[in-house]
């Protein structure tokens, strides 16, 4: 999945029209510890670009869990939901970005959903409350998750002012999102976030 995303990012790099610069964003928690797997998006005011649509993504249901927990897809991606469990699942989303229900599909059945609208989609299973997964439908080419050091580097970010958003499933803010502006020639940004504890069934490092 990550690898796939890197390939996708490399694609973005090749098509950069503007003078590119490296933008580094760092996310730490209240105690100053790096926060990994936070989704950072840069929206430049000039030279904005959507990621290339298409590609096929899979979010499986196995052992009463979604796999993977977090998926970043470009707008217009299709995601298939194969069920490897013996039980039926009722996958749903009430997220404004994509509302859907995949009602009671059994083992080895797979459904595919098309995501045409940018935003965060929270997935749940109406049968199994502990099942949770997130899909970030990206509408900006500069969308990536933080690494273990809590940083994201956009090597080809246009040297333009804009805004940066940080989303994390447990971030304590409306819609789990924080944002800040980026000035011209500003090549780094830092977010200090407050996280609420994950639900009991969820490991912190998903």
């Amino acid at each position, binding site marked *: 999945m990550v690898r796939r995303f890197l390939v996708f990012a490399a694609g973005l790099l090749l098509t950069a029209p503007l003078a590119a610069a490296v933008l580094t964003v760092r996310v730490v928690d209240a105690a100053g510890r790096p926060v990994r797997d936070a989704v950072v998006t840069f929206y430049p005011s000039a030279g904005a670009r959507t990621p290339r649509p298409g590609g096929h993504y899979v979010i499986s249901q196995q052992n009463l869990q979604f796999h993977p927990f977090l998926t970043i897809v470009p707008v217009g991606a299709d995601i298939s939901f194969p069920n490897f469990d013996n039980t039926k699942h009722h996958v749903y989303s*009430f997220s404004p970005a994509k509302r859907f229900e995949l009602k009671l599909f059994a083992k080895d059945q797979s459904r595919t959903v098309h995501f045409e609208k940018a935003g965060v989609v929270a997935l749940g299973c109406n049968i199994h409350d502990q099942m949770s997964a*997130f899909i970030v439908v990206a509408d900006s080419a500069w969308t990536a998750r933080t690494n273990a050091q809590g940083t994201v580097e956009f090597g080809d970010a246009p040297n333009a002012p804009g805004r940066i958003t940080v989303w994390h499933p447990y971030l304590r803010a409306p819609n789990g999102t924080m944002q800040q502006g980026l000035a011209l020639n500003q090549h780094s940004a830092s977010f200090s976030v407050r996280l*609420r504890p994950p639900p009991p069934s969820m490991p912190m490092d998903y």
Partner: protein
Amino acid sequence: MRSFRSLSTRLTVQFALLFAAAMLAVSAALSTFIAGAASREVEGQLQSSGAVYDRLWEERANELQNAAQLLARDFGFRAAVATGDQATMQSALGNAAARLKVRSAFIVTADGKITAVDPSIPAAETRQLWDPLDEGRLIGVSVLSGRPRQLVAAPIMAPTLIGWVVFAADLDPREMRGLERLSAIPLHAAVLAQAKGRWLEAAGSMSALSGETASLAESHVRTGAAFEMRVAGEKSIVLAKPLPTFADGQRAILLLAYPKSQALADARKLQLALAAMTFLGLLLMGFATWRAAGRITQPLARLDEAAGRLATGEHVQVRVRGSDELARLATSFNEMVGKIVEREQRITQLAFNDVLTGLPNRTMFHQQLEQLFRASEGNGSLFALHCLDLDQFKAINDTLGHPAGDALLVEAAQRLRHAARGSFVGRLGGDEFVVLQSVGPDRGAIDRLARDILSAIAQPLTIDGNELVPSTSIGIAIAPDDGNDGGTLLRNADLALYRAKEAGRGTYAFFEESLNQRAQERRQLESDLRLALERGEFELHYQPLFDLEQNRICSFEALLRWNHPKRGLISPADFVPVAEDTGLIVPIGAWVIREACAEAADWPGQIRVAVNVSPVQFHRGALHETILRALATTGLAPNRLEIEITESIFLEGGETTLRLLHALRAIGVRVALDDFGTGYSSLSYLQSFPFDKLKIDRSFIHNLLTRDGASAIVHAITELANALGIETTAEGVEETAQLMELRAHGCSSVQGFLFAEPMTAADVSQLFRDDRIALSDVA
């Protein structure tokens, strides 16, 4: 304490104070403990009531939360909330609130939108709940529209958190009353909540909330301990428990109040009872201590008093009760008193009684005597003093031993006491006894008593197997005729006693004035006798003894003469007894021996000298030494000295006398038995000692020619003496016929006026010078 004079008071006060202090301390401790225990119990009851409230609270919260969670999980409801379907949200919420009987319910969405079923709560207040909800607060008290309420929330997950369902239950008086009813004690319950710095009373029956009480309650919330506070005008024990609040900065307190008067009513009763019992106990203890002290000190006081009386000479006894130490002390005291009495009697007895016979002694006799004199002076009555002296007591004592003598004295005392019943009988010492007899008009009673005494004493008795026939002599003086004082009376009775003795013993004699005269003469004689030796008033005369076989003088008997300067020549018969009584015979006898030996040393060698020796010299004088010294100084051959003794020396100290005689004979001194044939003449003496000579008493010679049998006796004596190889001398030969007769009987020698009267030493010397030794003419 020291000021208490009585031991009883001191004991009472000390012990009472001690016990009272202990009792008060115990009571105080108990009272404090009761109060503490009651307080703890009340607090415990309050705590448990608080715990009950906690449970109620929890159950209610659980019920509400379960309902909220149920609603929050409903897919349709979640879909409605997620999609903002207001109508569906309102209806679902209203339905649940009605089912739970909750007046207010609302939904707070994650982005802060509110959907409420109770329009009375301002949205602004509701919106403030977002922060605590977002922080995960799901249960707690919060003030909404001016009223504290219990809030319970459940998150709506779709699947991420999209909002919360919140139920707000009223904390109304009904609920508080329910809590009050559940409690085991009659308490008042109230919930206080603080909103915007203002305390509100949620509910409850206290209805007397003031800022003061609220802050007081707040300050005690943290300690968790009960405290006292006025609730509704009543002092109460109050427990303040913190209640969880929904939002930070809010505070809620559960107040549980227990009116103190009710809470501690039982303890008060208990304390009152304790106080009453303590007081009663103090009274009882004081009384008991007083009684106990009395029991201890009463016997002591009695002993004290008895000891005081004992000191004054009274013979007291204390009553003994029980068997404790005090009783033993009392017993010992009584025994001590008994012993003191006994000792006093013994001392009196010793002071006034003779130990051996038990008769009153001389001291008591004198007292009695004086008493009788006084009585006599008063009423002119007469009384007689009998002085007794056992005859021959000294001889019995010496021959049979002192224990026998003592036995005789005891027996005599008993007989005397019996014979003289009703009269005072005493022992003055030795064998001297006295009887004081009161005499009425009949003077014959005196004679009768004397005779009774004589016959009583004269009964035979056996001592150590020896049969004795004791006898006594009695001298009687009658007061006041024979003496106006004890001394005179006793002396006169003694004189009478001498007379009785002289009269032959075993008889009694009355005092007469002549006796007094004689006694004075005798005393004069005594004092003259003492001086006679110093003044050289004694002189020896010598009477020759004529040997009938050799027809010559063979010996001279030395005879003592006293030339008294006033009375002239005094007969030895008059002064020798006095000299013997006074012991003067010892120096006089020694002088005689020395003088006779010195004289005889000048005589021709064949002439012996004979000296009379008194028994007193034998027993008291150092006769042996005297003779040895006389022989040594004069150079007289021992066989020229002949001592003449009488049988009476054998009456006292037989063994000693015999040893002495043998000793004298061993050195060659000759021993002659004088006055043979009179007195107790016993032939056994002749067997026990080898006498050199028997001197036949002059009474036989005197009667030789006139009385029948005298000749036969003289013949028998000479025959016996010849048979034993003993010489014989006839004394008092005055006639030639007597001489012829004696010659015929074979008598060895003669002595008497027929040959020569006693002559002076000078005449003897002259005789030898004239060489007229042979007086054969006469024969």
